[in-house]
C-alpha cells in the first residue's frame, strides 16, 4: 500500500508523509497550490491524492 501525489500528468510517491505535509510540500514547489483542491482516490490498495488548482477570482493571481 502506497500513497501518491498526483499533479497534472505527474505522480510522486509521498512515502510516509501525511496529507498535510504533502500539501505544504506541493505549495512550496507550486505556488498555485497554496490552497489546493485535493481529490482522494483508492485503487488496488494504493491511495492517490490528486491536486488541482482551485479556480480563483479573475486577476487574483496577479
Amino acid at each position, binding site marked *: 500500500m502506497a500513497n501518491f501525489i498526483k*499533479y*497534472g500528468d505527474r505522480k510522486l510517491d509521498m512515502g510516509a508523509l501525511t496529507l498535510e505535509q504533502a500539501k505544504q510540500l506541493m505549495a512550496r514547489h507550486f505556488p498555485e497550490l497554496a490552497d489546493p483542491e485535493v481529490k482522494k482516490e483508492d485503487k488496488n490498495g494504493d491511495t492517490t491524492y490528486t491536486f488541482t488548482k482551485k479556480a480563483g477570482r479573475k486577476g487574483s493571481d496577479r
Partner: protein
Amino acid sequence: MPNKKPVNKTTDDPKPITLIVTIYPPKKGQRHVMVSGAPEGEMPLLFTGIFQERHALLDQAFAGVLKREPQIVTLKDDKPGKPDKAKSITGDASDDETEEAESKEAASDQLVTVAEVSEPDSAESVPVSPITSADDLPVIDGDTATSDDVQRFEAALEDIKAEQPAALEGVPYYKTPAKKIAYGTFEKLKAEQADAADESEDNDNG
C-alpha cells in the same frame, strides 16, 4: 597567472534547482529531515531520513535532481489544440437550422414560377385593345406602309406565335413581351415612314 578554463555554458537556459529542507518535529523526540528538490515547474524529488543524515540527504537530493530526466508538470489546460468552447457558446446547431430555413425562404422568394409569369393580374396594367391582327389596325392618313410590310409583319407574328409556350396562348399577342416588341417595332416603322413621307411632301411643296 594560471589559465582558468571557462565554465561550460549550456546553450539553453536551465532553471535553478530549489531544495527545500523540512525538519520535523522541531523540538523534542527524534527529529526527521525531509529534503525535496526540483527545478521550477517540475515534480519534486523527495528524500527523507533522520536529522543526523541531513547533509547526505541534501547531496542525494541535489544529485538526484541533476541526473533525472526533466519531469515538467503539464496541466490539461496547457495542452495545445484544445477547442475553445467559449467561442462556440452561441454557435450551436439550432442556429444552423435557422440559417438554413432563412436561406430556403430567400431562395423561394427568388424563384419565379411559370404561373406567376403567365398571370396577367400580377403584371403591369396594359390597355386592352380589340386589335388582333394587322387588318384591324385603323387607317392612318399618310400611311405609306405597303402590303409587303403588312405581310412581313404577319409572317413575323406567326413565327412568334409558334414559339410561344402553351401557357401564354390565351393571352392577347400584344400583352406578351415578344409581341409587344414586335408590335412596337411595327408602329415605330410606320411612324418613321410617315415622317419620311411628310418631309418629302414638304420638300415638294417647297
